[in-house]
């Protein structure tokens, strides 16, 4: 048993050994943390104390072609309460009085939005500047109340330009999953529609980074001094091709009707001068939180204010496309510019059906130009039969139907251009007859186009067969001084020779100038104008009224297309609208030239 006893010297040595072991254990623990793991733990310590806060850049402004601001930013103030700094009773009572809100409502919003007791919990968004001024002046009365300013988009309601501008909103989770993370995160503002969506990257700029020091409880203690903030890059300013005056007159022109759309394009370069859809919505309500009731009201409106008619509205084009059948027949050598087919007696028997001309009195014997002037259906029926479904469809295709026009906006409809393959699919092989081509030739039947498609086709007619890509952005000016200008790009050539185009253009002229022209009312001394009326039968009621005007006819610089839904004859409704808009355009132009000349003359 002696082996379990220890001498005094032995015990002393064990004592020292124990002390040494404890010292070595603790010291090695210190060395491990403070020497070997120092770097990683120092980073963790820094990450602990700093919060990375994005600096949101100013979103780029949008101008019209003459440099007037179209989309602006305005400051919006959000009032918040820091729960830890709130004075019991006093803060909420005074704030409730200022905002006209019940204190229990304020309390419930604080509780809902509270992240920590030291961080501001928002109470009310978009507070008026006057109330912010009161908060600022009488801050002693509002302990714990703060406000944050953010920039909110401001859209021009009176221009009716929502189809172009679109609007912004908070990024959704689905959108986020398809985007690159550094530029977008939850809560980011992103373009939802229109050019806000298409040009979101340049408009948004690049977020900067601020480093804020925070306590363990999340209390913000101020700037973190050891790291330089990264400044934000403001968004690029975008100049549009839109002519605000023209745009305004288009929006005003449709004002008295239920629904419709107007598009104006410069055929020489494809610049979109105006585009509107009626009725429309107020884009400003989308830039803050939309009340559910308002959303319900907008989305269930039977006039579809959210429908982008110029790009997404599918309409039968009616007589407006008669140029194509005529052109196709000329191009195919089926007729010459003087060929008169069987005379129009107010209609034509085909098989067991009688196909009417719009004019029950008939047009008699007409040539191609005259057929366009009077919009003779019988002449076109005959051309349709000569061409056949597929050749006509090929020419429609060559004129851009069933192709997206390619405008620099997020979505476009392609329309419907039926051919025999389509009919076989739809009705079965031999389940349809060539009678369908009669309808196609006069722009009825299954043929569907968007107003923009039709406009670009007329741009081609006006511009010697060359169609430019329609575009709405003229110039992007980046914050670093770099400017990108959009140059006109040829989108397609109409499948017509010069001789054919001459005939078609003559048709354009005669619709207005001809004795029996369907748009004779547009004749005037100020400018020459050509065009085409259209009256599109549709299953939704009264005919749609079309008119596309081209002016000045000698060297066209503007093509204006109008469709008024369920409004009747093209010559009665749409033609006067287009005439009014084009007249305004030339009057302003004349005025500008006069002023310029006057200014030039005053110089010595």
């Amino acid at each position, binding site marked *: *048993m002696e*082996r*379990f*006893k*220890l001498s*005094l010297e032995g*015990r*002393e040595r*064990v*004592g*020292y050994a*124990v*002390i040494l072991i*404890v*010292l070595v*254990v*603790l*010291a090695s*623990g*210190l*060395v*491990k*943390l*403070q*020497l070997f*793991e*120092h770097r*990683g*733990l*120092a980073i*963790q*310590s*820094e990450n*602990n*104390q700093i919060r990375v806060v994005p600096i949101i850049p100013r979103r780029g402004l949008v101008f019209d072609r003459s440099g007037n601001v179209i989309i602006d930013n305005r400051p919006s103030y959000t009032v918040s309460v820091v729960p830890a700094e709130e004075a019991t009773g006093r803060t909420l009572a005074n704030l409730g009085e200022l905002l006209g809100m019940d204190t229990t409502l304020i309390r419930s919003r604080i509780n809902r939005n509270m992240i920590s007791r030291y961080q501001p919990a928002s109470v009310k968004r978009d507070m008026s500047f006057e109330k912010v001024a009161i908060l600022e002046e009488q801050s002693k009365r509002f302990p714990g109340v703060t406000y944050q300013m953010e920039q909110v988009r401001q859209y021009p309601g009176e221009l009716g330009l929502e189809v172009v501008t679109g609007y912004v909103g908070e990024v959704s989770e689905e959108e986020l999953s398809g985007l690159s993370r550094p530029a977008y995160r939850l809560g980011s503002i992103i373009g939802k529609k229109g050019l806000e969506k298409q040009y979101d990257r340049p408009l948004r700029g690049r977020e900067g980074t601020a480093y804020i*020091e*925070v*306590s*363990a*409880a999340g209390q913000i*203690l101020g700037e973190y001094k050891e790291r330089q903030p990264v400044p934000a890059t403001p968004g690029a300013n975008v100049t549009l091709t839109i002519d605000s005056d023209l745009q305004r007159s288009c929006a005003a022109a449709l004002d008295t009707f239920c629904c419709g759309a107007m598009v104006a394009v410069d055929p020489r370069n494809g610049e979109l001068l105006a585009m509107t859809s009626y009725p429309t919505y107020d884009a400003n309500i989308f830039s803050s939180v939309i009340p559910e009731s308002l959303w319900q009201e907008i989305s269930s409106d039977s006039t579809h204010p959210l429908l982008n008619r110029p790009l997404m509205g599918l309409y039968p084009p009616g007589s407006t496309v008669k140029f194509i059948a005529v052109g196709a027949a000329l191009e195919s050598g089926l007729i010459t510019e003087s060929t008169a087919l069987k005379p129009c007696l107010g209609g034509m028997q085909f098989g067991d059906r009688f196909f009417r001309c719009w004019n029950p009195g008939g047009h008699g014997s007409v040539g191609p130009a005259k057929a366009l002037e009077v919009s003779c259906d019988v002449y076109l029926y005959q051309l349709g039969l000569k061409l056949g479904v597929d050749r006509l469809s090929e020419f429609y295709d060559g004129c851009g139907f069933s192709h997206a026009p390619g405008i620099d906006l997020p979505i476009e409809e392609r329309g419907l251009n039926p051919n025999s393959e389509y009919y076989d699919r739809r009705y079965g092989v031999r389940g349809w007859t060539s009678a369908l081509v009669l309808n196609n030739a006069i722009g009825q039947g299954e043929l569907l186009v968007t107003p923009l498609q039709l406009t670009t086709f007329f741009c081609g007619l006006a511009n010697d067969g060359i169609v430019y890509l329609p575009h709405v952005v003229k110039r992007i000016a980046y914050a670093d001084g770099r400017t990108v200008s959009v140059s006109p790009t040829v989108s397609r050539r109409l499948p017509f020779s010069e001789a054919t185009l001459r005939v078609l253009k003559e048709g354009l002229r005669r619709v207005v100038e001809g004795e029996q022209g369907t748009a004779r009312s547009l004749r005037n001394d100020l400018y020459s104008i050509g065009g085409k009326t259209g009256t599109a039968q549709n299953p939704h009621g009264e005919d749609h009224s079309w008119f596309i005007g081209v002016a000045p006819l000698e060297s066209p610089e503007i093509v204006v297309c109008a469709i008024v839904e369920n409004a009747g004859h093209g010559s009665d409704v749409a033609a006067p609208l287009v005439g009014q808009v084009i007249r305004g355009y030339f009057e302003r132009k004349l005025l500008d030239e006069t002023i310029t000349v006057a200014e030039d003359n005053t110089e010595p």
Partner: protein
Amino acid sequence: MTLHYAAIDWKLIGAALVLSAIGIMLIMSAQHYADTAYQQQYYLRQLMWLGIALTIAAVVLHFPLRFFDLTAPLSYFVSLLLLVLVLFVGTARMGALRWFSFGPVNFAPSDFAKIALVFALARFFAYTKLPVISKRRLGFSAMLALIPVALILRQPDLGTSLVFFVILFGMWFWSGLSPLYMLLIISPLFSLVAASHWLAWAIYITVLLVFLLLLRPGFVFGFFVVVANLAFGIITPFVWGRLADYQRLRILTFLDPGLDPRGAGYQIIQSKIAIGSGGILGKGFLNGSQTRLDFLPEPHTDFVFSVLGEEFGLWGSLIVLLLFCYIFYRAVRIAVRCRSRFASLLVMGSASILLFQFLVNIGMTLGFMPVTGLPLPFVSYGGTSLVLSWTLIALIASADYRWQEY
């Protein structure tokens, strides 16, 4: 009675005084950016407590050791009485009945009980004629320790109860029991740990049996060790089921701090970040971001060493380690030199308390000991802790001063 001042071990007292001063400085830093003036002035209250502790230490130093020897049974019974009393009239804090409150002053009877156990064991071992490994000697001394442990576990306070075992082992050792024998005695605890996995336990039991065959400690004792090991291994799951949730959580988070990132594990992680980010030179006084921004839990009490590590780095931490080790080294020297067995045992008992709390507290801040809530002697904020530490230093110094007395 006047003391011969030159004969006092001023180096020992000086080391303790430097540690106390560092403590006050760290408490000041820990609460410098606190929300309330009350918290910011913790260091002033600690300074006041240091005055009280030094006064008590001076009084203790003036008492002859024979007084503590004679009154040891009385102190022991009083301490048990207080431990019982605290369960009935104590102030509940964080779910435990540990303190008597006298206005602003809180007194933990367990701190007094630690000293009382040292007195009692020192007296028993000093005068007993029983052989070193006799069952009655081991049994009686163990019983002296287990009674207060049982009462303290009722509070409950796992960390503090461990101190009583350490006192027992320290004094067993100093009264002549071989560490090998002590290892056999506490071997059931290893069995308990090994029982977490059947294979580990099987290997452990095999090793133990081989060990016993080689050492041949006697049949009765050997039989007892084997039975105890088997029993502990088997009842582990049962004991585990009886532990309070917070105790289980502490043990589990000690084994894996990632388990509970916002609780005990969070504290350890933040403490390691604080110490590690201090590096060699530290971030500077009042400049520790972990401390300043409240990431460090209990920076003035349990985790005061982390403040040191963060603000004064490796060099500051090593100085504190060396100061403590100097105190322990002095204690061993004094215990060896003392002619009185009571005094010698008293020194070792006192030193065991300080050493254990030193190891466990700093080990906790470094992340290799569980969170027990044991304060760092001299340094951590707290009146009773400071008074206890200084009383122990005074007893060691007193033994040194009277080393020639029998």
